[in-house]
């Protein structure tokens, strides 16, 4: 099972994923640039990704809580999701996402 992640520099990574892992955890485990500062509890938005068009409808829709957290980033698009809220399963083998600027570990604070 794998996911295909484009990082903020445009580099594409094919990452081995495990069933039941959060997509955020897979990305973090492989050392890509993701801050994920709340650790996966849907309490920040620093694991923000854009989901590839072909996959958008195949994910569970975001909860109200996730939508609320997406309010705290300024680069939201129609296909924005928090990667900590996507659980890996067989159905998602091959999932394609792109890391948002607002997920950077060195994300700009003022």
């Amino acid at each position, binding site marked *: 099972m794998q996911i295909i992640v484009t990082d903020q520099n445009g580099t594409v990574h094919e990452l081995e994923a495990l069933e039941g892992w959060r997509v955020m955890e897979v990305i973090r485990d492989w050392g890509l640039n993701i801050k994920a500062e*709340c650790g996966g509890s849907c309490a920040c938005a620093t694991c923000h990704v854009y989901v590839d068009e072909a996959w958008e409808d195949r994910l569970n829709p975001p909860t109200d809580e996730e939508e*609320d957290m997406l309010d705290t980033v300024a*680069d939201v698009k129609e296909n924005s999701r928090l990667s900590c809220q996507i659980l890996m399963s067989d159905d998602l083998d091959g999932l394609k996402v792109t890391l948002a600027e607002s997920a950077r570990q060195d*994300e700009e604070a003022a």
Partner: protein
Amino acid sequence: MTGNEIVTDVIIIGAGPVGLFAVFELGLVDLKCQVIDILDRPGGQCAELYPEKPIYDIPAFPEISGQGLTDNLMKQIAPFGAEFHFSQMVTNVEKLADGGYRVTTDADQTFVAKVIVVAAGGGSFQPKRPPVPGIEAYEGKSVFYAVRKMDEFRDQDVVIVGGGDSALDWTLSLEPIARSLTLVHRRDQFRGHADSVNKMRALVEEGRINFVMGQLGRLEGENGQISEVVLNTKAGEMGIPGTRLLPFFGLTMKLGPVADWGLELHENALIKVDTEKFETSAPGIFAIGDINWYPGKLKLILSGFHEAALMAQAAKRIVHPDEKVVFQYTTSSTKLQKKLGVA
């Protein structure tokens, strides 16, 4: 500066759960603490990121919220009379000739102590900066992440961005004095208090403020002064007049000035410590909780509690080098119980 300088045994930087528990462990060995935090209340990440989220891995608490944990810790450390200095960030740490340290905050408060405990978690919480090109040049002049002086906004074209309580509260507070006020949010749902949302919607109805569904695109202006805020909306780009911009996208953690204190770091992000005392490369400066690193480190609250206990033993030896440290249990020592106010 020396006029209001505070002299104490230990300066704790960070009032998260681990910083708070450090007050307890230091208190048991008779060390007095001053606690500094950039937030306006205790709790750190527990208060700022997940006050209502249940935590399941605190020993003896099958389930406790971030706020509940913070409240309990505040109760537990109350007997030790630590003093708190909130809404301040430590900017400078200076080594003194006698081996102690002087710490200065951005509120110009200074502290002197033999021991510093850095319990700063993921660093200091600072406002998120939206990814708008060139926004830095306007910050502090026409773009603000907090309202310090309301007068800055009087008779201005104010643009507020965000959907939470900060955005809503300031929309309501600044509307009477602003020349015009536009609230911008990516969707027509708000996560702020229902009452504030209703009040805001009433102002829109009355034509006293504008609401635009969209996101920040770019800024026009010169010499630090914005003149127009260009938004990305479903209908395309839309420019609105703006002479003051308030983006409210919450807070994020940043290592901040800690990086400049000359402490040995791990991967430029965490403070290296030993696992006997949790002391940094600078004698007398300890680091506990999420901000430290040692082989096998786990970022767990309970690890931070353990680190606080061992740190306190070492801190005691530094502050009172002539006293013998006797290890005692709170269950059996009347001395400790007296300190806790229970005997």
